[in-house]
């Protein structure tokens, strides 16, 4: 089975968030980037488990500049067989999806796996766009994935329970929490990653269809106000006039 896993980068969750260019760009100074956890922990690891059980090949793909190679090496260290970096800026979701689809269209992948979203922008649209551009079926937010005889069986959470879906391969599937368990790269994997192939594909830039005008941080948390238990009237006044919740 040939599996393509799309991996993106995201800031470490402990990063300090700041903006530049009149609040229109994310300030990457001093920010530590990690592999987007939904891509790494669930999509990539489940792809590796399927390959280990059934044979095949797992390719990881990223769209981005040279700074992406650090996270691609981690994906290779965890166990992917080879990697592709589409050398193009991550302009917007449609641009990234177009690059992925253009690369994947004639490669014969049985399965294209993505995380359900990136933890920085939470757009969740790349898997759907890739499926549409390749005219493939999509199962989004799968929390479980099994493959047998060309059919993928997925489970996903619905209100009050689970939904089981079957889809013929090839297909695009986006991975939610639960699909696999995180693997920590071991030293053998890190050493093996040194010599695994990382193909860099030059492409003509696509025009982004959306652009960011500005970012805003959420309002700072205000300090707690303590009200004497004997003073219920003050509490009610504050809830009514300041918090405006009653």
């Amino acid at each position: 089975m040939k599996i393509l896993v799309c991996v993106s980068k995201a800031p470490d969750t402990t990063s300090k968030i700041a903006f530049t260019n009149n609040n229109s760009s994310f300030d990457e100074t001093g920010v530590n980037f990690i592999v987007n956890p939904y891509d790494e922990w669930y999509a990539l690891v489940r792809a590796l488990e399927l390959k280990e059980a059934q044979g095949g090949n797992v390719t990881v793909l990223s769209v981005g500049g040279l700074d992406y190679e650090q996270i691609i090496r981690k994906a290779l260290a965890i166990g992917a067989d080879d990697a592709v970096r589409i050398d193009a800026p991550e302009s917007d979701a449609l641009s990234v999806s177009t690059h992925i689809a253009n690369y994947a269209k004639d490669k014969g992948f049985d399965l294209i796996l993505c995380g359900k979203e990136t933890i920085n922008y939470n757009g969740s649209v790349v898997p759907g766009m890739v499926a549409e551009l390749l005219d493939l079926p999509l199962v989004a937010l799968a929390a479980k994935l099994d493959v047998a005889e060309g059919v993928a069986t997925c489970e996903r959470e619905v209100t009050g329970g689970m939904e089981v879906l079957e889809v013929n391969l090839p297909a695009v599937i986006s991975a939610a929490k639960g699909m696999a368990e995180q693997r920590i790269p071991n030293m053998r994997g890190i050493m093996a990653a040194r010599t695994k192939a990382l193909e860099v594909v030059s492409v003509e830039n696509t025009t982004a269809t959306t652009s960011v005008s500005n970012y805003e941080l959420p309002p700072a948390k205000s300090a707690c106000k303590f009200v004497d238990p004997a003073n219920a009237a003050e509490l009610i006044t504050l809830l009514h006039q300041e918090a405006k919740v009653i």
Partner: protein
Amino acid sequence: MRTDQYQGHDYYLMDELLTDEHKLIRDAAREWVKKEVSPIIEEAAENCKFPQHLIPGLASIGAFGPYIPEEYGGAGLDQIAYGLIMQELERCDSGLRSTASVQSSLVMYPIWKYGSEEQRMKFLPKLASGEWIGCFGLTEPDHGSNPGGMTTNFKDMGDHYLLNGAKMWISNAPFAQVAVVWAKNEEGRIHGIIVERGMEGFTTPTMHGKWSLRASDTGELIFDNVKVPKENLLPGRSGLGGPLSCLDSARYGIAWGAIGAALDCYDVALRYSQERMQFNKPIGAFQLQQKKLAEMITEITKAQLLTLRLGQLRNEGRATSSMISMAKRNNVDMAKTVASNARQMLGGMGITGEYPIMRHMMNLESVITYEGTHDIHLLITGMDVTGFDAFK
């Protein structure tokens, strides 16, 4: 213990001086420690028992001989990668790092540097994989800072050597399969001999009653007319320089490890200072607490720069023993001070097992003593800069 919320601190953007592979190795070690060790380390320290089930995991992250060439089972990495792994292990516990640095620097290193090809092929792959654990016998009950005075000795009996004597304060001794033992021959010359568990007359009683490095096993090595095959003598080096070169490697690892312990104490104290409210504001908003935190991160940053430079020099083969002494002495003392101030910031909570600081403080009392005491390292620097030997 609480959930391990540790995050690294890199005030001078030192990550920019590391390779992508360095960071991958460090982060993998950190993730493994958080997942496998942090949840159990407090209990291991309370029970005074090294958690042996961690050995395969330590091997998998490359903690055993990462700089040993790949043909002998190592990872062929550089000295900075080795240092980063030691930092991440000691960030959790000095005893954990001790087990790994003894295996790497005091057992695998001498076999690699001074062993025969047959010895390398026999021992190194099994030590790298963790199938065998090793220990290092130099210190004796009556010879600590003066190892050259050792009385453990061996006699040439024709087809074997006969080993007699005792070693003390030996990390990993109670469960090690292999011991690299330093002993004098009949002419009084020091040689390294590989002693294997099961050899008649060789016993390794556990030392009890430690209030430090409780998550690491420490013991004695007793040699009572042990017959050691002649092929177990390390042929490549004799004299005190042999064990001292191993100590250079181990002390270098300790210099990195101590930064790890300091970082953990700082990290815990910083977070606590932002959450703990007194007089209606976080204690981190008070000047006296800020003084402690500012001095901690300043000293940690200085140690990080010193140690990374030392790693670069070791990669180039230009780090001297005296340079290593300076880093070991400075960093362990720094970590002790950071731990002490961090403990004060946590008030009463600082003495409980809910936070790691008191355990670090107790561990560091051993670390400042073993592998050359704080005072001995000062004399090494003193001799290096003046040319006068003030040891005796």
